[in-house]
Every structure is written in structure tokens, then in C-alpha cells.
């Protein structure tokens, strides 16, 4: 390379344009376009591959509960049901615990345990899904079968959710694993949101004689509502798309049952189990169709979370700006 071309006239900083600069800028443009292209490509590919199924079953695919590869009748309802229930139960378990931990970390914990616990929580987030599944099969499921489920069946057995034999493997165990997997998300996002609550408000509450707990309930939680909700939705997105750990623990049965003890199936785990071995074209297209549903659901969930969290970000910017 020779000497760098320089323009003779002094221009505004950063506005200097020469040939290499323009080429460089154009080349760099390829990368963000590639990002857009990949996401668009995923959508198009999913749509194309599932086209026969979309044509054959139409929107009824989402509300049909038969999944019969012999008769080639496919409907995604059992998987949608399994996905929604397992995610909701997981949230029910994870939100109070996660939020509680986040409040503890942000408001109560002294400096050193705060730092240690925070990094341990990050560690929890870093454990791969398949390892959660392994732990689920060999540690959690036996405990569920011999202790937790009989206990729940005995004392809460009048509810339809806790009826039926305790096999360990099933919706409940999968939900517990999911809950453990999404807790780190809820903790880290809620903690950020809580820490972002301006001190003046808290101080105002204390000044009026509020106890710490009252300050948390009245000020912090309602101020951070949107952000915490965003975090919860994001965590739900994770739970919906989670594949391996769920596949290993949920029991893989195409059946809609009210009991949490019975085996179930989710959108992601049916793809994991059956995609490589779907024999007919329609079968494969139906599985891709499920992939498409999963893709669209995850996009909707992320848009929701994004809208909620974006507001928080903007607000924080104002405070930083001050």
C-alpha cells in the first residue's frame, strides 16, 4: 500500500471521504445486512419447508390434538399445550424465588456476599442445557418420584394437577428444571431494574418512616414493574424454546392431561426427537411447521420484552445523562 490518499480541503471531522473509506463503508454494510438476511432466511426456509403441511392442515394445525404418523394426521395442540403449561409452571416457581433473590441481592445483602452470589448466579446461567437434563434424570427425577410427588399427591391430591401415579418423569419435573434454568435470567434482569430505581424515591420513603420492606413494596416494585415484567417475559421466551433438558425429563407423550405428574411433550422436544427420523414428506413438513410456530412465538415474546425493557433503558439514559 502506498501513501494514504488524503483530501486537500479540510473537512468536518469524521466527514472525510475518500475512495478507500467509501469502499470500506460499503463492505462493512455487508455484515449488518447479513444479519438481517439470516433472520429473514430462517423465516423463509421454515415457511418453504413446512409449506405442504400449512397447505394441508391450515390454521387448524394449531388446535388439532392428533399426532398420528401412521394415518398422517398432524396437529400441534398437545405440544403447544405442553409448552405453555411447562413454561407457566416454571414461571410460577421461578418468579417469586428469582425476584426474592434479586431484591435480597440489591437491597439487603452486604457487599461481599452480593458479589459472590451474583457470580454464582451467572455460573448457574452458564450451565449447558444438556447438563441440566443429565442432572434432571439422575438426581431430580428420583427425588420427585419418591418424595416430592407422593407428598404433593397426599396433601394437594384433591386438585386435578396433582393426581395420578408419581413416575418422576413428566411435566412437573420438566417444569422444575426449567424453573432452575430461567431463575438466573429473572435475577439478573430484576436486579438491574431494582438498582436503577433512583435513590431519591427510596430516600423519600424512608424519610417518611417506611420500613425497608415497605419501601421495597411501595416504591421499588411498582417503579420497576415494566422492567421486571420484561425480564419475566424474556425468561418465558427461554423456557418456551428450551429443548434438551425438557426432552430428557418431560416423558415425550403426545397427550393432553390436567395432571402435572403425567408425561407431556413440547414444541421444541418433538422436533428434537422426531426430526431426524420423520419418514414421510408431510411428517417432516409438520415438524418444520412446529419449528415455524416456535420461531414466530419466540419473536412475539421477544418483541414484548423488548418494548418493556427498551423503556427502562431510555429512562436509565436520562439518569445517566444527569
Amino acid at each position, binding site marked *: 500500500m502506498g501513501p494514504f490518499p488524503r483530501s486537500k480541503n479540510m473537512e468536518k471531522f469524521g466527514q472525510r471521504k475518500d475512495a478507500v473509506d467509501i469502499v470500506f463503508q460499503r463492505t462493512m454494510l455487508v455484515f449488518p445486512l447479513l444479519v438481517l438476511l439470516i433472520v429473514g432466511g430462517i423465516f423463509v426456509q421454515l415457511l418453504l419447508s413446512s409449506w405442504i403441511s400449512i397447505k394441508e392442515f391450515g390454521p387448524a394445525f394449531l388446535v388439532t390434538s392428533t399426532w398420528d404418523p*401412521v394415518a398422517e394426521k398432524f396437529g400441534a395442540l398437545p405440544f403447544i399445550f405442553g409448552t405453555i403449561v411447562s413454561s407457566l409452571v416454571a414461571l410460577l416457581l421461578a418468579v417469586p424465588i428469582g425476584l426474592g433473590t434479586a431484591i435480597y441481592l440489591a437491597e439487603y445483602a452486604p457487599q461481599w456476599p452480593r458479589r459472590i452470589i451474583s457470580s454464582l448466579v451467572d455460573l448457574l446461567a452458564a450451565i449447558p442445557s444438556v447438563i441440566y437434563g443429565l442432572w434432571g434424570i439422575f438426581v431430580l427425577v428420583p427425588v420427585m418420584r419418591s418424595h416430592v410427588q407422593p407428598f404433593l399427591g397426599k396433601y394437594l391430591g384433591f386438585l386435578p394437577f396433582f393426581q395420578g401415579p408419581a413416575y418422576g418423569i413428566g411435566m412437573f419435573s420438566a417444569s422444575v428444571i426449567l424453573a432452575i434454568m430461567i431463575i438466573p435470567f429473572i435475577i439478573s434482569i430484576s436486579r438491574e431494574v431494582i438498582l436503577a430505581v433512583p435513590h431519591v424515591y427510596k430516600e423519600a420513603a424512608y424519610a417518611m418512616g417506611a420500613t425497608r420492606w415497605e419501601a421495597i413494596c411501595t416504591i421499588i416494585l411498582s417503579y420497576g414493574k415494566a422492567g421486571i415484567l420484561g425480564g419475566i417475559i424474556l425468561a418465558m421466551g427461554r423456557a418456551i424454546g428450551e429443548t434438551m433438558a425438557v426432552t430428557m425429563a418431560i416423558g415425550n407423550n403426545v397427550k393432553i392431561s390436567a395432571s402435572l405428574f403425567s408425561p407431556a411433550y413440547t414444541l421444541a422436544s418433538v422436533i428434537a426427537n422426531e426430526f431426524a427420523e420423520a419418514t414421510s414428506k408431510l411428517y417432516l413438513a409438520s415438524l418444520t411447521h412446529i419449528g415455524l410456530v416456535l420461531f414466530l412465538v419466540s419473536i412475539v415474546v421477544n418483541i414484548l420484552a423488548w418494548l418493556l425493557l427498551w423503556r427502562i433503558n431510555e429512562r436509565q439514559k436520562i439518569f445517566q445523562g444527569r
Partner: protein
Amino acid sequence: MVRKILGLTLLIGLCSTTAFAAVLINGAGATFPYPIYSKWFDVYHKMNPEIQFNYQSIGSGGGIKQITAKTVDFGASDGPMTQDQLNEAPGRIYHIPMVMGAVVITYNVEGLDKNLKFTPDVVADIFLDKITNWNDPRIAAANPGVRLPSGSILVVHRSDGSGTSYIFTDYLSSISSAWKAKVGKGTSVNWPVGLGGKGNEGVAGLIKQTPGSIGYVELSYAIKNDLDYAELENSSGHFIKPDLDSTAKAAQGVKIPDDFRVSLVNSSNPDAYPISGFTWVLIYKDMEDHVKGKAIVDFIKWAIHDGQAYTEDLLYAPLPAEVIEMIEKKLEQVKY
């Protein structure tokens, strides 16, 4: 520093890539014969170090699909391909039987001192969710003197497309009209009840882990994992314990068609175990790759002769002599 690490890892990658430039033959399919296939591939690789067979036990449905899509060099299945599936394939596909095996009803019930006995209708009704408790009088009727515990039955079936499921549902369809009408036979079916396990491994794993469960696996998976398995009443009314002899008897007196696609379930032989079947490898008649084609055919020739010696250890029944002759003739038609 970063560059050094990157360079080092790249180096490792390249070394391992170039150092093993052998013929790699990819196969996929049935989990039913997986124990013997992996033994064969291991032994064969030691005899012919330049040839590697990579076999993934993803289920027979997967074997059929992947060979049809030509994403593997050979498929394996214990459910024969249907005529539709054969027509859909881009070339002529041969079914080559490799061994015979038995699908056994295996269960995890504590406190039993001997193997349970089942009649066909009881098996069908358990899998149809009509018999749901271990102390059901119909189970007890076939097992006089056995103290059956009270507890619900947990059915375990395959979650993947499976030839074991094919053989099992083929059997259930042949003995139960209710099953035939409601579920039918196939590598994947719409199970009325139960947990899904991935592969014979997965089903055996679930049964081992779960008290009160019942399921079906290939004989060797039951024996190798110390699972209890049932004696089953065959078409002649005898209770037969699945083993090598009773499995082998299932093929006696059965006319083997030229394309080998034959069902051996519910054999009329009075000593035969009723849920037995061939397991096939699926290959194209016209192989695209000469080297791989030759390697596959050579391997099959070895497996149906010398390879049959390993069957007993791994609890499969060897092929009948006349079938081996038929296979040899068939292999001569394979072009590579």
C-alpha cells in the same frame, strides 16, 4: 496471545483432520441391532483399519428417511419400507437381513420372584390403557401363585421412529383387532398411553429408572441391563421365554420372499417366540461411490458369514442358512 491460541487450536484441528484420511462410511437407523452392529463395526475396523463405519442409532424411521434422502451411505431398519416409501426413493433400495432378534416385554416391578407371563390380549390392553394396575385380575390369571403388587402400570414406548415399534405394533395388530383399528402398525404410531423414550436405549433406561413401568425392547437390551422380561403366549397357546432358540424358530417354515420384506411375528411354529423379526440394512442397488460401495458389500459379506459368530454373545439369532445363500445372490446384483 489470542493469535497463538487460535493458531494452536487450528493446528490441532488440522492434524486430526489429516491424520485419519480413511474411508468413512456413514450409516444410520435402527437401534434394535445397534449392539451387534457396533460390535461388528469395531471388529471389522480392527481387521481393516482403513475402513470406518460410523453408525448412528437414531431409529428405523430415521434410517429409512436418511437413506431416501441419501444423507447416509446405508440405512438400517427393522420395519420394512412400505411400497410407497420404496417408490419415493431416488433409486432401487435393497433390504438385506443381517440378524434376527426378539422384542421382549420388559418391566420393572419390585418383589417378584419369577418372570411374569402374559397373554396377547393382556399385552394389547395394557398398551391400549385398558389394564392400568399391576394387580389386575387378567394379569393374575396368567400368573397363578405370583403375588402382584398394587400399583399403576406405566407404559413406556418409543418416541422416535422405530423398527422395534414396528415389530411390536405389527404383532399387536395381528393379535388385537381393537389395536389394529385404533392405532395400527408403523415405525411411529399414535400411542394411546405412556412415556416416550428415545431409542431402545432410552426405553430401557426409562424402565430401569422407573418402578412400575412396562415397555418393549430388543432382547439384548433387557438382558444386558438386568431387566425382567415376560414369557408370552404364542399362537399355539404355549408360554414362550424369548431366547435365541425361540427367536430362530420364528423363521422356520416361513417362505422368505425375494426382497426379504417379510414379517415373522406371531409365527405358526409352536415353539417360536411371537414377537421376532429380521433387521435389515438398506442399500441402494446402484451405489454412486465405488470405494464406499465395495466397502459396504464386503462388510455385509463378512457380517453374514464370520459376523454371525458374534450373535450369540449379544443375544441375537443368526440368519438361517438358506437366507444367507439368498443374500449372496442378491449382493451380486449390487453395482458399484
